[in-house]
């Protein structure tokens, strides 16, 4: 089944985790969809590096946080927060590629 992430998530957000890292949070609507996404390994470093036009080495971690039905992805920031060429000091508006994400999921 084709699934749009925005239909099964209640939170899709980005934020600095310190001035050198950006962290993306996806909080799924319920445990069932969370477990399915986790088991199917939908979110991979390859996928995120492709979405954000960044090197796979810059994907610092993908962590599932079961108590919140959440997936957390941490990337190296494009440049440190506030350095010349910055577009988003707080890193709070870097979620759009995830919000547009679609994937196949066996139901």
């Amino acid at each position, binding site marked *: 089944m084709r699934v749009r992430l925005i239909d099964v998530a209640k939170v899709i957000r980005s934020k600095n985790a310190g001035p050198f890292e950006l962290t993306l949070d996806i909080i799924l609507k319920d445990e069932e969809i969370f477990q399915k996404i986790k088991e199917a390994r939908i979110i991979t470093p390859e996928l995120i590096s492709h979405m954000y036009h960044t090197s796979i080495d810059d994907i610092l971690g993908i962590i599932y946080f079961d108590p919140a039905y959440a997936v957390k992805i941490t990337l*190296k920031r494009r440049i440190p927060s506030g350095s010349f060429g910055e577009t988003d000091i707080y890193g709070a508006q870097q979620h759009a590629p995830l919000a547009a994400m679609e994937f196949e999921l066996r139901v």
Partner: protein
Amino acid sequence: MSERRRCTILSPTAILGYGFPEESFKRGLKMRPDVIAVDGGSTDPGPYYLGAGKPFTNREGVKRDLKFMIAAGLDLQIPVIVGTAGGSGAKAHVDWALDIVREISEELGKSFSVGVIYADIPKELVKKKFVEKKIEALAGVPNLTFEMIEGSTNIVAQMGYEPMIDALDKGCDVVLAGRAYDPACFAAVPIRMGFDPGLAMHAGKILECAAIASSPGSGSDSVIGIIEADHFSLMTLNEERRFTKESTCAHTLYEKSDPYHLPGPGGMINLDEVAFTEFPETVEVSGSKFIPSDPYTVKLEAATCVGFRTISIAATHDPIMMGQIDSIIEEVKNRVSKLIPDIFDKVKIHIHEYGKNGVMGPWEPEQSVGGHELVLLIDVLGPDQKTADSVCSLLRSSLLHFGYDGRVSTAGNLAFPFSPSDISVGEVYEFSLYHIMELDESEITGLFPVKEVQI
């Protein structure tokens, strides 16, 4: 174990100066808190504030919040603790906050003692630790060099709760701490009373954002945390919002790379076995542990001045221009470089294109221009203000009158909202230090001595 069964912590607002409803705060006081604590800062607003020694919160806002807190603290004879005073927690910031506290003292007509704890770390010590290989870069951070240390303006370290306990032991009524680990100002009193550091620190991690962690969230409302022997609970002080399991869990993810392991001064909050339980009025949290590290480490932060900025904001509504905007910008830069070759090499230029990729830059997935307007923000960084001004001015005038292919709008290419069109922004900073430094036992409090000020 503690002689007392519980420790009650009142967190009035997410950042000192962001405000809170008086009714919420008063409801919190009725719960007989053992401490009123507030986080005063963050690195979130970027490197400028730490580098320049300027606050990012408004003076009137900080004074209003702090006056309520100090009046209540003196009245109930409980300590008021501010972490990361003044926004970035360097000496200039702490002194700024101390000046506000003096004013409050005069207005209240009350004298009290303030424990001032600076978090500035002398460059000589940082260099010594660097030579001893006791400084390590965090993930994504460049390795340290002598030039980075030398070029930094204010070097601070995030203190733990230990120096704050020193201030409480000295009997200070108000504690103004420089740069501190966000949870420390909330954890100091319960840890001093004998409660579990894991619970106290994890509670502090949530309380530092006050009502942001409740639902619906707010950065300007008060909440209560109650630490007991084997758990802590959180409650709001406003009927409009409450803590839920969901809001508390979601907040645990916020602004950090690994929600299970939260490293800080002297150790790590470990949430591998954490459990959140929701009740009608509260959320209870148990299983949080604090795992001390050996050696004790602190995080260094600093910024360095990289030059001066001038900006100009303008927009186009012309589809012919928008269709070839990148080649126009490149050609304009090229022409300006030929007009002023001697200074062009000394500047950095970034033209933000709002409507195209202004928010995400090279990360933008959508590479075409979709809308009917495009905003250009010319951003020039020069070695001095005059150079930045000159280059920005030439870029702006060249863009305005550039004759691109197929141009029909020959009177001018840009719509300017402001006169003057160019703004000299001043000094620009970048983060230089964000490194972990090992401390000796004596430095845990020795680097952050408490200065008692009677006012």
